[in-house]
């Protein structure tokens, strides 16, 4: 039902749009780590924040796609989109008996890979997706709760219990009536390197990144998934607001930075060691610093916006700029302007890139070797977001 043609690609701005929403590509490491940051925090109800954001965003996306595709009222559209975006497989055939089954899950893969194991049910985004999908396509108010998860021992698929509700659990609204677009035009220039950035960005944007028979997207040695940027922005903004209620706002921001720093280390380490890197980017690498430029080029193809290397003359510092980062634009859309920077993901990425390329040893031991700051931000009415990572002496 979905093909690559459903994505409207804008390589100049680094955007990949479907159903009026820009989608962002992150991997299973980052997605599960971000979820853990919210859910393992006992001060707030992180599960609710994630589930609500997923329900609202996928309600809106599927409502738009249902109209664009003139789809009839069946859930094949929702199952097809779930698979296409790389989240796994969803079987709605027992919905009326109160059950939805998922035999494959991007999030379970994330929780099972690396050092964030849990024995619990982890498919919070899927719960929200099911609730939003059923509301968008059938107009029914339901609650979806995962009662068993293949993240658990001796369990081979995820089961979601469906309960009909009299009234909707959340506010379900359509906010994007037109195709999403960033403005202004990106103007920042990148310093010279041996990397042909535009070729890399265009090639990756044109790659057939869509779910396979397991509904997963194995690429660059990680599992990728396309997620509307609105989801990440709602999750992160609401997380910080909730933490602020308990006086932990600064800790919350640093947690989000650290998630991204780990993302850069794990995801980009996987990318550097991948067949895809060897085929496309490795032939351009002449010196170590080119790896930074190559990885930034890859980041430009992930829907994060347009990112440039502003300065990188020493192995001790890196400056990046972004003229349309999804965090800043999301913040302005949802909360308007601010007097402080808001791009925690890109800030963490800036440090993680340096730790990956220039530090030695186990990846987990490299976290914190570089300090990162966001010097200026679009949310402060500056013309770009400006990040600095410098060696922590």
């Amino acid at each position, binding site marked *: 039902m979905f093909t690559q043609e459903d994505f409207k690609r804008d390589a100049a701005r680094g955007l990949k749009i479907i159903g009026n929403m820009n989608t962002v590509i992150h991997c299973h*490491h980052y997605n599960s780590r971000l979820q853990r940051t919210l859910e393992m925090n006992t001060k707030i109800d992180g599960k609710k924040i994630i589930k609500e954001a997923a329900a609202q965003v996928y309600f809106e996306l599927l409502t738009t796609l249902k109209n664009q595709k003139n789809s009839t009222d069946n859930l094949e559209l929702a199952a097809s989109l779930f698979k296409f975006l790389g989240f796994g497989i969803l079987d709605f055939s027992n919905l009326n008996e109160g059950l939805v089954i998922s035999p*494959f899950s991007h999030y379970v*893969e994330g929780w*099972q*890979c*690396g050092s964030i194991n849990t024995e619990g049910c982890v498919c919070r985004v899927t719960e929200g997706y099911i609730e939003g999908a059923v509301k968008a396509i059938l107009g029914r108010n339901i609650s979806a709760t995962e009662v068993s998860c293949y993240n658990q021992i001796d369990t081979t698929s995820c089961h979601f219990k469906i309960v009909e509700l009299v009234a909707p659990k959340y506010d379900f609204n359509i906010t994007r009536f037109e195709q999403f677009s960033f403005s202004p035009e990106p103007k920042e220039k990148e310093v010279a390197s041996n990397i042909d950035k535009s070729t890399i960005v265009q*090639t*990756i944007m*044109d*790659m*057939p990144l869509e779910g*396979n*028979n*397991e509904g997963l997207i*194995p690429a660059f*040695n*990680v*599992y990728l998934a396309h997620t509307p940027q609105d989801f990440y922005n709602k999750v992160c903004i609401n997380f910080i607001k909730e933490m602020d209620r308990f006086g932990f706002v600064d800790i919350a921001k640093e947690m989000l930075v650290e998630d991204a720093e780990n993302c850069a280390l*794990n*995801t980009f*380490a*996987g990318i550097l*060691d*991948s*067949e*895809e890197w*060897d*085929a*496309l980017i*490795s*032939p351009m690498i002449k010196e170590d610093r080119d790896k930074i430029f190559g990885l930034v080029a890859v980041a430009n193809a992930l829907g994060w916006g347009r990112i440039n290397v502003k300065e990188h003359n020493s192995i001790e510092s890196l400056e990046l700029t972004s003229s349309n980062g999804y965090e800043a634009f999301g913040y302005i859309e949802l909360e308007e302007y601010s007097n402080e920077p808001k791009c925690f993901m890109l800030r963490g990425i800036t440090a993680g890139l340096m730790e990956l390329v220039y530090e030695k040893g186990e*990846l987990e031991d490299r976290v914190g070797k570089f300090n990162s700051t966001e010097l200026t931000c679009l949310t402060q009415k500056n013309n770009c977001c400006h990040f600095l990572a410098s060696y922590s002496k």
Partner: protein
Amino acid sequence: MIFPYRRKVKNCIRKDTYRYYFDEKNVNKVWKNLQDQFGKAVQWGAFPLFQIENEKILIRKSLKENSFTLIRKSTFSKSDEVLIHKLIDFAE
């Protein structure tokens, strides 16, 4: 370096994802054996990267490298690994 050998890929798709390395002179033969068993490799994306895929496995190979990466899907079993090792004449 003694070929063939394999190493575990860090930060991988799934645990037990390996990259296999071969002597240059054997690469074409190995790649042919895999295609004879699992079907013709197809180019993935607009750059020199090829893949063989079925319900159980995904094998990716950069055209110029003397290696490939074997990605195991959920139904991959020990017997599948034995078969692949036989095809590529690999033993540990």
